[in-house]
Protein backbone atom coordinates (compact mmCIF):
# COMPACT_ATOMS: atom_id res chain seq x y z
CA UNK A 1 0.00 0.00 0.00
CA UNK A 2 1.21 3.42 -0.87
CA UNK A 3 1.64 5.40 2.31
CA UNK A 4 2.01 8.83 0.89
CA UNK A 5 -0.89 8.99 -1.50
CA UNK A 6 -0.80 11.91 -3.84
CA UNK A 7 -3.21 14.63 -2.80
CA UNK A 8 -5.84 15.28 -5.43
CA UNK A 9 -7.77 18.41 -4.67
CA UNK A 10 -11.45 18.75 -5.44
CA UNK A 11 -12.03 21.79 -7.62
CA UNK A 12 -15.41 23.28 -8.45
CA UNK A 13 -15.52 25.48 -11.53
CA UNK A 14 -18.58 27.64 -12.04
CA UNK A 15 -18.85 28.56 -15.70
CA UNK A 16 -21.22 30.95 -17.35
CA UNK A 17 -23.28 29.35 -20.06
CA UNK A 18 -22.39 31.71 -22.86
CA UNK A 19 -18.64 32.12 -22.79
CA UNK A 20 -16.77 29.99 -20.33
CA UNK A 21 -18.86 26.84 -20.54
CA UNK A 22 -18.47 27.04 -24.29
CA UNK A 23 -14.75 27.67 -23.76
CA UNK A 24 -14.57 24.52 -21.65
CA UNK A 25 -16.38 22.62 -24.40
CA UNK A 26 -13.89 23.96 -26.89
CA UNK A 27 -10.93 22.76 -24.85
CA UNK A 28 -12.64 19.36 -24.92
CA UNK A 29 -13.19 19.54 -28.66
CA UNK A 30 -9.49 20.37 -29.06
CA UNK A 31 -8.58 17.52 -26.68
CA UNK A 32 -6.70 19.87 -24.37
CA UNK A 33 -6.17 18.03 -21.12
CA UNK A 34 -6.72 19.29 -17.63
CA UNK A 35 -7.05 17.27 -14.43
CA UNK A 36 -10.19 15.32 -13.75
CA UNK A 37 -10.55 16.86 -10.30
CA UNK A 38 -12.01 19.92 -11.97
CA UNK A 39 -15.79 19.57 -12.15
CA UNK A 40 -17.81 22.19 -13.93
CA UNK A 41 -21.18 23.57 -12.87
CA UNK A 42 -23.06 25.49 -15.52
CA UNK A 43 -24.68 28.74 -14.48
CA UNK A 44 -26.41 31.18 -16.81
CA UNK A 45 -24.07 34.08 -16.04
CA UNK A 46 -21.20 34.76 -13.68
CA UNK A 47 -23.55 37.10 -11.83
CA UNK A 48 -25.61 34.08 -10.80
CA UNK A 49 -22.83 32.93 -8.50
CA UNK A 50 -23.92 33.46 -4.95
CA UNK A 51 -21.11 33.64 -2.39
CA UNK A 52 -23.05 31.01 -0.51
CA UNK A 53 -22.34 28.51 -3.28
CA UNK A 54 -18.62 29.02 -2.86
CA UNK A 55 -18.78 28.54 0.88
CA UNK A 56 -21.02 25.54 0.35
CA UNK A 57 -18.42 23.98 -1.92
CA UNK A 58 -15.72 24.46 0.69
CA UNK A 59 -17.99 23.03 3.35
CA UNK A 60 -18.65 19.94 1.30
CA UNK A 61 -15.02 19.25 0.71
CA UNK A 62 -13.87 21.42 -2.19
CA UNK A 63 -10.26 22.55 -2.00
CA UNK A 64 -10.57 25.29 -4.58
CA UNK A 65 -13.34 27.21 -6.31
CA UNK A 66 -12.99 29.08 -9.57
CA UNK A 67 -15.50 31.26 -11.39
CA UNK A 68 -15.23 31.68 -15.12
CA UNK A 69 -17.30 34.17 -17.07
CA UNK A 70 -17.32 36.27 -20.20
CA UNK A 71 -14.67 38.96 -20.44
CA UNK A 72 -15.81 42.28 -18.98
CA UNK A 73 -17.72 44.07 -21.69
CA UNK A 74 -18.71 40.85 -23.43
CA UNK A 75 -21.38 39.63 -21.03
CA UNK A 76 -24.31 38.04 -22.80
CA UNK A 77 -26.51 39.97 -20.40
CA UNK A 78 -24.43 43.14 -20.88
CA UNK A 79 -23.55 43.83 -17.28
CA UNK A 80 -23.65 40.57 -15.31
CA UNK A 81 -19.93 39.99 -15.04
CA UNK A 82 -19.34 43.53 -13.81
CA UNK A 83 -21.49 42.80 -10.78
CA UNK A 84 -19.88 39.39 -10.38
CA UNK A 85 -16.48 41.05 -10.45
CA UNK A 86 -17.30 43.38 -7.57
CA UNK A 87 -18.95 40.66 -5.54
CA UNK A 88 -16.10 38.22 -5.94
CA UNK A 89 -13.43 40.82 -5.31
CA UNK A 90 -15.04 41.74 -2.03
CA UNK A 91 -15.76 38.17 -1.03
CA UNK A 92 -12.23 37.01 -1.75
CA UNK A 93 -10.86 39.95 0.14
CA UNK A 94 -13.04 39.03 3.10
CA UNK A 95 -11.91 35.40 3.03
CA UNK A 96 -8.35 36.63 2.92
CA UNK A 97 -9.11 38.90 5.86
CA UNK A 98 -10.25 35.86 7.80
CA UNK A 99 -6.93 34.22 7.05
CA UNK A 100 -8.27 31.74 4.53
CA UNK A 101 -5.79 31.04 1.75
CA UNK A 102 -6.62 33.47 -1.02
CA UNK A 103 -5.18 31.15 -3.65
CA UNK A 104 -8.12 28.79 -3.19
CA UNK A 105 -10.47 31.18 -4.92
CA UNK A 106 -10.09 32.64 -8.36
CA UNK A 107 -11.98 34.44 -11.08
CA UNK A 108 -10.90 34.07 -14.67
CA UNK A 109 -12.53 35.48 -17.78
CA UNK A 110 -12.67 32.87 -20.53
CA UNK A 111 -14.41 33.49 -23.82
CA UNK A 112 -16.04 30.85 -25.96
CA UNK A 113 -12.98 30.95 -28.23
CA UNK A 114 -10.46 30.47 -25.46
CA UNK A 115 -10.43 26.71 -25.10
CA UNK A 116 -6.69 26.76 -24.63
CA UNK A 117 -6.92 29.42 -21.96
CA UNK A 118 -9.55 27.39 -20.13
CA UNK A 119 -7.35 24.29 -20.04
CA UNK A 120 -4.27 26.28 -19.08
CA UNK A 121 -6.15 28.09 -16.33
CA UNK A 122 -7.45 24.84 -14.90
CA UNK A 123 -4.04 23.20 -15.01
CA UNK A 124 -2.49 26.11 -13.26
CA UNK A 125 -5.25 26.39 -10.68
CA UNK A 126 -5.11 22.69 -9.86
CA UNK A 127 -1.37 22.98 -9.41
CA UNK A 128 -1.72 25.96 -7.09
CA UNK A 129 -4.35 24.26 -4.97
CA UNK A 130 -2.42 20.99 -4.88
CA UNK A 131 0.52 22.88 -3.45
CA UNK A 132 -1.71 24.44 -0.80
CA UNK A 133 -2.93 21.02 0.23
CA UNK A 134 -6.21 20.11 1.77
CA UNK A 135 -8.67 22.82 2.65
CA UNK A 136 -8.52 22.94 6.44
CA UNK A 137 -9.60 26.44 7.24
CA UNK A 138 -13.05 26.29 5.74
CA UNK A 139 -13.85 22.66 6.24
CA UNK A 140 -16.83 21.05 7.85
CA UNK A 141 -15.62 17.89 9.55
CA UNK A 142 -19.09 16.39 9.40
CA UNK A 143 -18.74 16.19 5.64
CA UNK A 144 -15.36 14.46 5.78
CA UNK A 145 -16.10 10.91 6.65
Amino acid at each position, binding site marked *: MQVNQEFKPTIVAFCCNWCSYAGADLSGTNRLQYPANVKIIRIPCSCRLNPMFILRAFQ*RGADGVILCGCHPGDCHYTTGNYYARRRMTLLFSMLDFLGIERERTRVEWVSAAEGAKFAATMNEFVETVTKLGENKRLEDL*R*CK*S
Partner: protein
Amino acid sequence: MKKCPVSQLDALFASVAARQKLYIPAGEAKTAAFQPWQEGMKLTDALNTVRSAKDLFFPQVENLVNFKVTGKQIEIIENRDPSEPFVVFGVRACDCRSFDILDKVFLCDPVDTYYKTRRENGVIMTLACTEPEETCFCTAFGIDPTDPAGDVSCWMDGENLYLRANTEKGETLLSELPMLSDGDAPAADKTVFDRLPLKNLPLDKFGGEHMMELFKYEKWAGLAESCLGCGACTFVCPTCQCYDIREFNTGDEIKRFRCWDSCMYSDFTLMSAGQPRPTQLERFRQRFMHKLVYYPSTHDGEFGCVGCGRCLQKCPISMNIVKVAKTLGEETT
Protein backbone atom coordinates in the same frame (compact mmCIF):
# COMPACT_ATOMS: atom_id res chain seq x y z
CA MET B 1 -13.41 21.14 56.09
CA LYS B 2 -10.13 21.22 54.21
CA LYS B 3 -7.91 24.03 53.15
CA CYS B 4 -5.17 24.75 50.72
CA PRO B 5 -3.04 27.90 50.51
CA VAL B 6 -3.91 30.10 47.55
CA SER B 7 -0.28 29.93 46.54
CA GLN B 8 -0.77 26.22 45.96
CA LEU B 9 -3.83 26.64 43.76
CA ASP B 10 -1.92 25.65 40.64
CA ALA B 11 -0.76 22.46 42.27
CA LEU B 12 -4.28 21.74 43.39
CA PHE B 13 -5.63 22.21 39.87
CA ALA B 14 -2.81 20.15 38.44
CA SER B 15 -3.61 17.38 40.81
CA VAL B 16 -7.31 17.41 39.89
CA ALA B 17 -6.52 17.66 36.19
CA ALA B 18 -4.18 14.69 36.43
CA ARG B 19 -7.14 12.49 37.20
CA GLN B 20 -9.87 13.96 35.04
CA LYS B 21 -10.59 16.93 32.90
CA LEU B 22 -10.86 20.13 34.93
CA TYR B 23 -12.71 23.26 33.89
CA ILE B 24 -12.10 26.57 35.60
CA PRO B 25 -13.55 30.02 34.91
CA ALA B 26 -10.78 31.81 33.06
CA GLY B 27 -10.10 34.54 30.57
CA GLU B 28 -10.58 38.28 30.39
CA ALA B 29 -13.45 39.59 32.48
CA LYS B 30 -15.64 40.43 29.48
CA THR B 31 -15.26 37.02 27.84
CA ALA B 32 -14.74 34.77 30.86
CA ALA B 33 -15.64 31.14 30.24
CA PHE B 34 -15.21 27.72 31.76
CA GLN B 35 -12.12 26.45 30.03
CA PRO B 36 -10.17 23.22 30.27
CA TRP B 37 -7.42 23.90 32.77
CA GLN B 38 -3.90 24.10 31.47
CA GLU B 39 -0.63 24.78 33.20
CA GLY B 40 -0.44 28.43 34.12
CA MET B 41 -4.10 29.25 33.57
CA LYS B 42 -5.45 31.80 36.04
CA LEU B 43 -8.93 32.22 37.46
CA THR B 44 -10.82 35.06 35.83
CA ASP B 45 -11.33 38.38 37.58
CA ALA B 46 -14.97 38.33 36.64
CA LEU B 47 -17.55 37.39 39.19
CA ASN B 48 -19.10 35.00 36.73
CA THR B 49 -18.61 33.56 33.26
CA VAL B 50 -20.49 34.82 30.22
CA ARG B 51 -22.06 31.44 29.66
CA SER B 52 -23.00 29.37 32.68
CA ALA B 53 -21.69 25.99 33.75
CA LYS B 54 -24.82 24.53 32.15
CA ASP B 55 -22.86 24.20 28.89
CA LEU B 56 -20.74 21.42 30.33
CA PHE B 57 -23.77 19.28 31.04
CA PHE B 58 -26.06 20.40 28.26
CA PRO B 59 -23.85 21.61 25.43
CA GLN B 60 -25.16 23.99 22.79
CA VAL B 61 -24.76 21.38 20.04
CA GLU B 62 -24.72 17.67 20.67
CA ASN B 63 -24.85 14.66 18.36
CA LEU B 64 -27.72 12.28 18.94
CA VAL B 65 -27.54 9.61 16.27
CA ASN B 66 -26.59 9.02 12.64
CA PHE B 67 -28.55 7.42 9.83
CA LYS B 68 -27.10 5.89 6.76
CA VAL B 69 -29.19 5.06 3.73
CA THR B 70 -27.98 2.47 1.28
CA GLY B 71 -30.49 1.52 -1.37
CA LYS B 72 -33.68 0.97 0.58
CA GLN B 73 -31.93 0.15 3.87
CA ILE B 74 -31.65 2.63 6.71
CA GLU B 75 -28.93 1.93 9.21
CA ILE B 76 -28.96 3.61 12.60
CA ILE B 77 -25.52 4.42 13.94
CA GLU B 78 -24.85 5.38 17.53
CA ASN B 79 -23.01 8.71 17.48
CA ARG B 80 -23.09 10.22 20.93
CA ASP B 81 -20.38 12.64 21.79
CA PRO B 82 -18.16 10.80 24.26
CA SER B 83 -18.49 11.85 27.89
CA GLU B 84 -15.74 11.33 30.40
CA PRO B 85 -15.42 12.20 34.07
CA PHE B 86 -14.73 15.85 34.68
CA VAL B 87 -14.60 18.45 37.40
CA VAL B 88 -15.84 21.98 37.11
CA PHE B 89 -14.42 24.42 39.60
CA GLY B 90 -15.64 27.86 40.50
CA VAL B 91 -19.36 27.45 39.94
CA ARG B 92 -21.24 30.19 41.73
CA ALA B 93 -24.18 29.49 44.01
CA CYS B 94 -26.66 30.74 41.42
CA ASP B 95 -25.34 28.51 38.67
CA CYS B 96 -25.23 25.60 41.07
CA ARG B 97 -28.91 26.09 41.85
CA SER B 98 -29.63 25.93 38.12
CA PHE B 99 -28.77 22.24 38.16
CA ASP B 100 -31.65 21.59 40.57
CA ILE B 101 -33.91 23.17 37.96
CA LEU B 102 -32.36 21.40 34.96
CA ASP B 103 -32.39 18.05 36.79
CA LYS B 104 -36.13 18.31 37.29
CA VAL B 105 -36.58 18.70 33.58
CA PHE B 106 -34.01 16.32 32.15
CA LEU B 107 -33.96 13.58 34.80
CA CYS B 108 -37.69 13.09 35.20
CA ASP B 109 -39.30 10.40 33.12
CA PRO B 110 -38.38 9.97 30.27
CA VAL B 111 -34.82 10.50 31.40
CA ASP B 112 -32.56 12.41 29.07
CA THR B 113 -29.66 9.99 29.01
CA TYR B 114 -27.31 12.43 27.30
CA TYR B 115 -27.69 14.89 30.16
CA LYS B 116 -27.75 12.17 32.79
CA THR B 117 -24.43 10.72 31.69
CA ARG B 118 -22.79 14.09 31.98
CA ARG B 119 -24.35 14.77 35.38
CA GLU B 120 -22.98 11.46 36.59
CA ASN B 121 -19.58 12.15 35.16
CA GLY B 122 -19.33 15.70 36.41
CA VAL B 123 -18.21 16.92 39.81
CA ILE B 124 -19.26 20.45 40.68
CA MET B 125 -16.95 22.52 42.86
CA THR B 126 -18.70 25.72 43.81
CA LEU B 127 -17.09 28.93 44.95
CA ALA B 128 -18.68 31.28 47.45
CA CYS B 129 -19.24 34.91 46.42
CA THR B 130 -17.69 37.78 48.32
CA GLU B 131 -17.99 40.66 45.89
CA PRO B 132 -21.36 40.53 44.11
CA GLU B 133 -22.27 42.73 41.17
CA GLU B 134 -25.16 45.15 41.30
CA THR B 135 -27.04 42.84 38.93
CA CYS B 136 -27.02 39.93 41.39
CA PHE B 137 -30.33 38.94 42.91
CA CYS B 138 -29.92 35.27 43.78
CA THR B 139 -30.88 36.07 47.37
CA ALA B 140 -34.36 36.88 46.11
CA PHE B 141 -34.69 33.17 45.31
CA GLY B 142 -33.43 32.08 48.70
CA ILE B 143 -29.94 31.29 47.53
CA ASP B 144 -27.11 32.02 49.92
CA PRO B 145 -24.19 33.08 47.72
CA THR B 146 -21.82 32.76 50.67
CA ASP B 147 -22.70 29.14 51.21
CA PRO B 148 -23.02 27.48 47.83
CA ALA B 149 -24.01 23.87 47.33
CA GLY B 150 -22.44 21.44 44.84
CA ASP B 151 -20.37 18.34 45.30
CA VAL B 152 -17.68 20.42 46.90
CA SER B 153 -18.19 23.93 48.28
CA CYS B 154 -15.25 26.31 48.27
CA TRP B 155 -14.43 29.61 49.89
CA MET B 156 -11.49 31.73 49.12
CA ASP B 157 -9.91 34.48 51.13
CA GLY B 158 -6.65 36.21 50.51
CA GLU B 159 -4.63 33.30 51.85
CA ASN B 160 -6.49 30.07 51.59
CA LEU B 161 -8.98 28.11 49.60
CA TYR B 162 -11.31 26.23 51.92
CA LEU B 163 -13.07 23.15 50.65
CA ARG B 164 -16.00 21.19 52.01
CA ALA B 165 -17.24 17.99 50.41
CA ASN B 166 -21.02 17.76 50.32
CA THR B 167 -21.48 14.50 48.47
CA GLU B 168 -19.81 11.18 48.05
CA LYS B 169 -18.36 12.30 44.71
CA GLY B 170 -16.98 15.32 46.49
CA GLU B 171 -15.50 13.27 49.30
CA THR B 172 -13.77 11.01 46.80
CA LEU B 173 -12.34 13.94 44.92
CA LEU B 174 -10.96 15.64 48.04
CA SER B 175 -9.52 12.43 49.38
CA GLU B 176 -7.35 12.19 46.30
CA LEU B 177 -5.77 15.61 46.74
CA PRO B 178 -2.62 15.39 48.86
CA MET B 179 -2.01 19.09 49.37
CA LEU B 180 -5.10 19.62 51.50
CA SER B 181 -4.94 20.09 55.23
CA ASP B 182 -7.73 20.57 57.76
CA GLY B 183 -8.99 24.04 58.38
CA ASP B 184 -12.23 26.03 58.67
CA ALA B 185 -13.23 29.03 56.65
CA PRO B 186 -13.73 32.24 58.58
CA ALA B 187 -17.35 33.41 58.82
CA ALA B 188 -18.52 35.18 55.70
CA ASP B 189 -19.16 38.91 55.71
CA LYS B 190 -22.68 39.22 54.39
CA THR B 191 -23.18 42.94 54.75
CA VAL B 192 -22.56 43.75 51.11
CA PHE B 193 -25.39 41.41 50.10
CA ASP B 194 -27.82 43.51 52.14
CA ARG B 195 -26.93 46.47 50.01
CA LEU B 196 -27.78 44.72 46.74
CA PRO B 197 -30.31 46.90 44.93
CA LEU B 198 -32.37 44.05 43.55
CA LYS B 199 -32.54 41.84 46.60
CA ASN B 200 -36.18 42.62 47.29
CA LEU B 201 -37.55 41.57 43.95
CA PRO B 202 -41.32 41.27 44.44
CA LEU B 203 -42.12 37.64 43.65
CA ASP B 204 -45.28 37.15 45.70
CA LYS B 205 -47.63 37.32 42.76
CA PHE B 206 -45.83 34.66 40.79
CA GLY B 207 -46.33 30.97 40.90
CA GLY B 208 -49.40 29.18 39.69
CA GLU B 209 -52.11 31.20 41.40
CA HIS B 210 -52.52 34.23 39.17
CA MET B 211 -51.63 32.46 35.96
CA MET B 212 -54.42 33.69 33.70
CA GLU B 213 -54.47 37.12 35.25
CA LEU B 214 -50.77 37.50 34.52
CA PHE B 215 -51.08 35.96 31.08
CA LYS B 216 -53.67 38.50 30.06
CA TYR B 217 -51.97 41.44 31.69
CA GLU B 218 -52.00 44.33 29.27
CA LYS B 219 -48.55 45.63 30.09
CA TRP B 220 -46.84 42.75 28.25
CA ALA B 221 -47.14 44.73 25.04
CA GLY B 222 -45.17 47.65 26.42
CA LEU B 223 -42.52 45.37 27.87
CA ALA B 224 -42.09 43.32 24.73
CA GLU B 225 -42.19 46.31 22.40
CA SER B 226 -38.46 46.86 22.17
CA CYS B 227 -37.42 43.19 22.30
CA LEU B 228 -35.26 42.42 19.26
CA GLY B 229 -36.05 38.73 19.34
CA CYS B 230 -32.46 37.66 19.69
CA GLY B 231 -31.47 34.76 21.88
CA ALA B 232 -28.81 36.41 24.00
CA CYS B 233 -30.81 36.13 27.23
CA THR B 234 -31.68 32.49 26.67
CA PHE B 235 -28.21 31.42 25.64
CA VAL B 236 -26.48 32.97 28.63
CA CYS B 237 -29.21 31.80 31.00
CA PRO B 238 -28.19 28.95 33.30
CA THR B 239 -31.73 27.57 33.47
CA CYS B 240 -32.99 27.79 29.90
CA GLN B 241 -33.32 24.27 28.67
CA CYS B 242 -35.17 24.39 25.34
CA TYR B 243 -33.58 22.62 22.44
CA ASP B 244 -34.37 21.74 18.87
CA ILE B 245 -33.61 18.45 17.16
CA ARG B 246 -32.24 18.89 13.68
CA GLU B 247 -30.65 16.88 10.96
CA PHE B 248 -27.70 17.52 8.71
CA ASN B 249 -27.23 15.69 5.46
CA THR B 250 -23.55 15.26 4.75
CA GLY B 251 -24.26 13.55 1.47
CA ASP B 252 -23.16 10.23 2.91
CA GLU B 253 -25.33 10.11 5.95
CA ILE B 254 -27.78 12.01 8.05
CA LYS B 255 -26.50 13.37 11.33
CA ARG B 256 -29.21 14.01 13.87
CA PHE B 257 -28.18 16.46 16.52
CA ARG B 258 -29.75 18.76 18.98
CA CYS B 259 -28.97 22.36 19.62
CA TRP B 260 -30.21 25.00 21.96
CA ASP B 261 -33.31 26.78 20.88
CA SER B 262 -34.62 30.08 22.11
CA CYS B 263 -38.24 30.91 22.79
CA MET B 264 -37.33 34.38 21.57
CA TYR B 265 -36.78 33.10 18.03
CA SER B 266 -39.45 33.54 15.43
CA ASP B 267 -39.21 29.88 14.47
CA PHE B 268 -39.37 28.53 18.04
CA THR B 269 -41.68 25.50 18.14
CA LEU B 270 -42.60 26.16 14.55
CA MET B 271 -45.12 23.64 13.36
CA SER B 272 -46.50 22.76 9.98
CA ALA B 273 -49.63 24.69 10.84
CA GLY B 274 -47.59 27.75 11.65
CA GLN B 275 -46.21 29.52 14.63
CA PRO B 276 -48.26 29.14 17.84
CA ARG B 277 -46.77 32.36 19.18
CA PRO B 278 -46.95 34.52 16.10
CA THR B 279 -45.50 37.77 17.42
CA GLN B 280 -42.61 38.72 19.65
CA LEU B 281 -45.12 39.68 22.33
CA GLU B 282 -46.23 36.09 22.79
CA ARG B 283 -42.70 34.74 22.63
CA PHE B 284 -41.45 37.31 25.09
CA ARG B 285 -44.31 36.54 27.44
CA GLN B 286 -43.58 32.83 27.15
CA ARG B 287 -40.06 33.23 28.42
CA PHE B 288 -40.98 35.12 31.53
CA MET B 289 -44.20 33.22 32.20
CA HIS B 290 -42.14 30.04 32.02
CA LYS B 291 -39.53 31.21 34.49
CA LEU B 292 -41.89 32.91 36.92
CA VAL B 293 -45.23 31.15 36.59
CA TYR B 294 -45.36 27.89 34.63
CA TYR B 295 -42.26 26.31 36.11
CA PRO B 296 -43.10 27.08 39.74
CA SER B 297 -46.70 25.98 39.21
CA THR B 298 -45.51 22.47 38.38
CA HIS B 299 -42.46 22.36 40.63
CA ASP B 300 -43.71 23.22 44.10
CA GLY B 301 -43.29 26.94 43.73
CA GLU B 302 -39.65 26.79 42.78
CA PHE B 303 -38.81 29.57 40.30
CA GLY B 304 -37.08 28.91 37.01
CA CYS B 305 -34.64 31.77 37.65
CA VAL B 306 -31.61 31.81 39.91
CA GLY B 307 -30.86 35.54 39.87
CA CYS B 308 -27.43 35.30 38.28
CA GLY B 309 -28.01 38.62 36.52
CA ARG B 310 -26.56 37.55 33.16
CA CYS B 311 -29.60 38.63 31.19
CA LEU B 312 -29.41 42.02 32.87
CA GLN B 313 -25.91 42.43 31.56
CA LYS B 314 -26.32 40.95 28.13
CA CYS B 315 -29.66 42.09 26.75
CA PRO B 316 -28.92 44.46 23.85
CA ILE B 317 -31.79 46.70 24.84
CA SER B 318 -31.67 46.13 28.59
CA MET B 319 -35.02 44.46 28.96
CA ASN B 320 -34.88 41.68 31.54
CA ILE B 321 -36.59 39.52 34.09
CA VAL B 322 -36.17 42.11 36.83
CA LYS B 323 -38.00 44.79 34.86
CA VAL B 324 -40.70 42.30 33.98
CA ALA B 325 -41.06 41.04 37.54
CA LYS B 326 -41.23 44.55 38.94
CA THR B 327 -43.78 45.75 36.40
CA LEU B 328 -45.99 42.73 36.85
CA GLY B 329 -45.36 42.23 40.55
CA GLU B 330 -46.08 45.75 41.61
CA GLU B 331 -49.08 46.58 39.55
CA THR B 332 -51.15 43.43 39.74
CA THR B 333 -51.20 43.63 43.50
